[in-house]
């Protein structure tokens, strides 16, 4: 009897397993979703850290799995998309090794300190991704963290021997097809039927994150002479960018171009308030007394002598009051008065002259960078409690992005974006206005299933703990924007994702 039962059920089991319930129109059927006039069978993404899935100050596996190209490729699968491979890191630590020596830092995680306060810290441990271990094969995701527009066409950018000198990129060195390969060459060699190109962010971003420490190279057409924190000349950008688009579209591939967001949309520049210095009335009065002669005699005097303009004199006035105050800072765009102040009629001692040389107070429309929060208000010399950064010691110029510096960035990025949009129009490619989309996140936020996505640091959901790169949820938002543009341009119906299903920051204690 037991055997009869057993065999009966065995036979029935075979029969009924095949009786799966079928939808009238299953989403998995060919044709339920359409790629329209685009062919998604071979998708290659080209770009920088944003395309690679970089987050929390590092590249690591789970970040890469949530890169916007990978999210898009998963959705492309519903509309004829093929496999999508990425040069995955070896771990979720994120740091890179070169010949066993760590050359980039591990990722940030949100940790709780001994006082119960959560904050970003670097994940401890030794990473295992050594860039001298070359990956084999080609990769659909050609996002290279750190790449600027002109790097994509630079031979040798993936030569591991050039990494220590900064001539090559450690991430590209892992998977470049040869020592002389270019990013764009390796992308085109895969014969993509569809591509995305999002490049140019770093052409302004490194200048911005360094607080304008670099040089605005507008007018200099030779990128080989540029420093790492410089702004790329818009003509150089236009030239290499159109070269890239030409290469990617040469075989008839369709694609999507993404423009450059404003730096003021990202928490790296919007988290630290400009008036972060609390003072009581007594302290403020004492400080004002010290600057009285400077404000009322020296600055008007310099303006009268024509050394500085009356506007600059006004800009350089120092004033404190009870309550929140703007810190003092060094601004290398100001006239350097160090030498003049040591001469007649001022005859200030060298140390004081140096302090006042390019001194001003931060203004409300300056941007203080995120990492300044660990310096602002601290006393670097434990033996001198009076030496407080922001009050008696100026903030380093590299920690403040002044309005002058912001204007340079805006000028460059506006020019880049004009190039990107014009090329998209000329080539009939899909275009994504990431600048406008990110501005929406920064100004009020974007409602999704489960909340509002904002650019608030740590809690807003859009930005990872480095304050610059998105979270998986931020990348999912990006992927939806791009899919929307593809659907609109190519008459496609690729499904989007619910961004609430994508994680934000990672909590972990070391």
């Amino acid at each position: 009897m037991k055997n009869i039962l057993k065999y009966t059920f065995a036979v029935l089991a075979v029969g009924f397993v095949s009786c799966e319930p079928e939808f009238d129109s299953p989403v998995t059927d060919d044709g339920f979703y359409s790629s329209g006039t685009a062919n998604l069978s071979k998708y290659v993404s080209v770009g920088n850290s944003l395309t690679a899935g970089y987050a929390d100050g590092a590249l690591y596996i789970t970040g890469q799995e949530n890169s916007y190209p990978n999210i898009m490729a998963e959705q492309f699968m519903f509309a004829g998309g093929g496999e999508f491979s990425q040069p995955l890191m070896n771990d979720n630590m994120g740091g890179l090794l070169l010949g066993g020596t760590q050359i980039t830092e591990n990722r940030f995680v949100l940790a709780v300190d001994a006082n119960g306060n959560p904050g970003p810290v670097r994940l401890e441990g030794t990473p295992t991704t050594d860039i001298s271990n070359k990956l084999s094969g080609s990769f659909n995701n050609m996002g290279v963290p750190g790449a600027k527009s002109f790097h994509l066409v630079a031979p040798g950018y993936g030569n591991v021997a050039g990494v220590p000198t900064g001539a090559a990129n450690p991430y590209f060195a892992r998977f470049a097809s040869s020592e002389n390969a270019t990013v764009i060459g390796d992308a085109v060699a895969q014969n993509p039927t569809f591509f995305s190109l999002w490049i140019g962010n770093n052409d302004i971003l490194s200048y911005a994150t360094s607080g304008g420490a670099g040089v605005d190279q507008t007018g200099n057409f030779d990128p080989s002479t540029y420093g790492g924190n410089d702004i790329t000349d818009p003509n150089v950008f236009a030239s290499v960018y159109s070269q890239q688009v030409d290469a990617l579209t040469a075989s008839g591939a369709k694609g999507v171009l993404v423009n450059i967001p404003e730096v003021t949309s990202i928490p790296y520049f919007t988290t630290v308030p400009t008036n972060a210095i609390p003072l009581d009335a007594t302290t403020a009065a004492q400080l004002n007394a010290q600057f009285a002669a400077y404000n009322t005699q020296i600055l008007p005097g310099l303006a009268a002598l024509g050394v500085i303009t009356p506007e600059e004199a006004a800009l350089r006035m120092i004033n404190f009051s009870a309550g929140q105050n703007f810190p003092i800072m060094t601004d290398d765009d100001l006239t350097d008065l160090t030498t003049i102040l040591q001469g007649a009629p001022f005859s200030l001692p060298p140390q004081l002259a140096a302090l006042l040389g390019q001194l001003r107070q931060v203004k409300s429309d300056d941007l203080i960078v995120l990492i300044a929060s660990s310096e602002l208000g601290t006393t670097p010399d434990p033996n001198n409690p009076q030496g407080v950064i922001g009050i008696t010691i100026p903030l380093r110029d590299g920690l403040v992005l002044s309005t002058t510096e912001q204007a340079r960035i805006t000028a460059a990025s506006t020019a880049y974006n004009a190039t990107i949009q014009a090329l998209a129009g000329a080539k009939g490619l899909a275009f994504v206005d990431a600048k406008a989309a990110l501005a929406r996140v920064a100004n009020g936020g974007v409602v999704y299933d489960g909340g509002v996505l904002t650019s608030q640091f740590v809690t807003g959901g859009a930005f990872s703990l480095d304050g610059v790169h998105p979270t998986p949820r931020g990348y999912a938002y990006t992927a939806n924007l791009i899919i929307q543009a593809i659907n609109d341009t190519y008459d496609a119906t690729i499904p989007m994702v619910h961004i609430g299903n994508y994680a934000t920051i990672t909590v972990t204690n070391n």
Partner: protein
Amino acid sequence: MKKVLLLAVFALASAVTYAGGYRVSLQGNKALAMGHTGVAVVNSSESVFFNPAALVYLEDKFSISAGVHGVFSNIAYQDTETGANARTDSPVGTPLYLYASYQATDWLAFGLGVYTPYGSSVEYEDDWAGSHLVNNIDLQAIYIQPTVSFKINDKLSFGGGPIYVTGSVNFNRNLNRTLTDLDGNRSNVTIDASGVSNWGWVASAMVNLTDDLHIGATYRSEIILDAEDGTAEFENIPNSPLTPFENTSIKASLPMPAEMTVGMSYDFCESWTFAFDYNRTFWDVYNSLDIDFANEAIPDSKNARNYKNASIYRFGMQYDATKMFTLRAGYYFDESPVREGYFAPETPRNDSNNFTAGLTVNLGEHLQIDASFLYSHFKEVDASYNYYFENGVAVPFKGTYKTNAFVPGLGLTYKL
């Protein structure tokens, strides 16, 4: 007959509701083959479940029936907005039953039943789109029911008895839509409680209006399974004071709702029987599935269900074809207790149309083989569960569901 059936079906189909629950109507191969009717059928010791009052009218001194059903159920899910899709890979359920009856005197009979009227076994792929609601669930409840049946006269009898229930539940789901450990493994919790028991009762009556026309009524009480020392096991939790999920004990209650059945059977043309049962299941007791974690750092889990009472309309036919074969067929319409907006994927059942057939093979005077087959047809349904919250914001889980079930069954009856 066919016309009556059709009319009834159409009338019911217009009452648009969502259906489901974790009631498993598989309490006998003979009855199931007739659409799981039986409250007014005098046929076998399956009456221990269907109507204890009928036992006293059984012709045999002693009768025992045992059997098993193989439940092959499938759920398909898809969300056309995102393309997300999933299919369950649920293990084959094998609910068992055993009934014995003994005719002590002309007016008194005793019986014993062991059966499993509630249960659920659903297994989605881990981390599927609805994994924050359920990854898998296995719910079992075994009813043990000693029974007495006595007749007042040939027209009227009563029956009933206490019910002892022992149950178990194992339930796994992800903590929310996004939390993972450092390596991206989704944080999840497994709730386990077993050996949870409680008592209930059943009472019934039977009226024989004529020799051929019977009316029956059975009420089975509500039984709440209160798990006092279940366990919660957390997995893939980040190492952080911000996520204080540690293994702990839990308290939870799962109701086995009361059920009222009334029905009739009619014997005609010598070898034919028609039966009709109406079930009312009092699901409104299942208001919320709440899990109370002993560790106070872990917020209690409240999951609104808000079920409503639901009806099932059952029709069955039996034909004694030959001395050796008895043929049966049936149909029932199963109304879902799930309200709109409460469609949770752990029991995603909408209204169903159910078709049954079966036969008994008489192997001599004492032994019968009973076989049955049930096909449950669920219409494709767009539904959502709107009571999942993240940070106080409701996050509906929407999609299209298509479910079916095939249930072959086999049993033996031995009588003296």
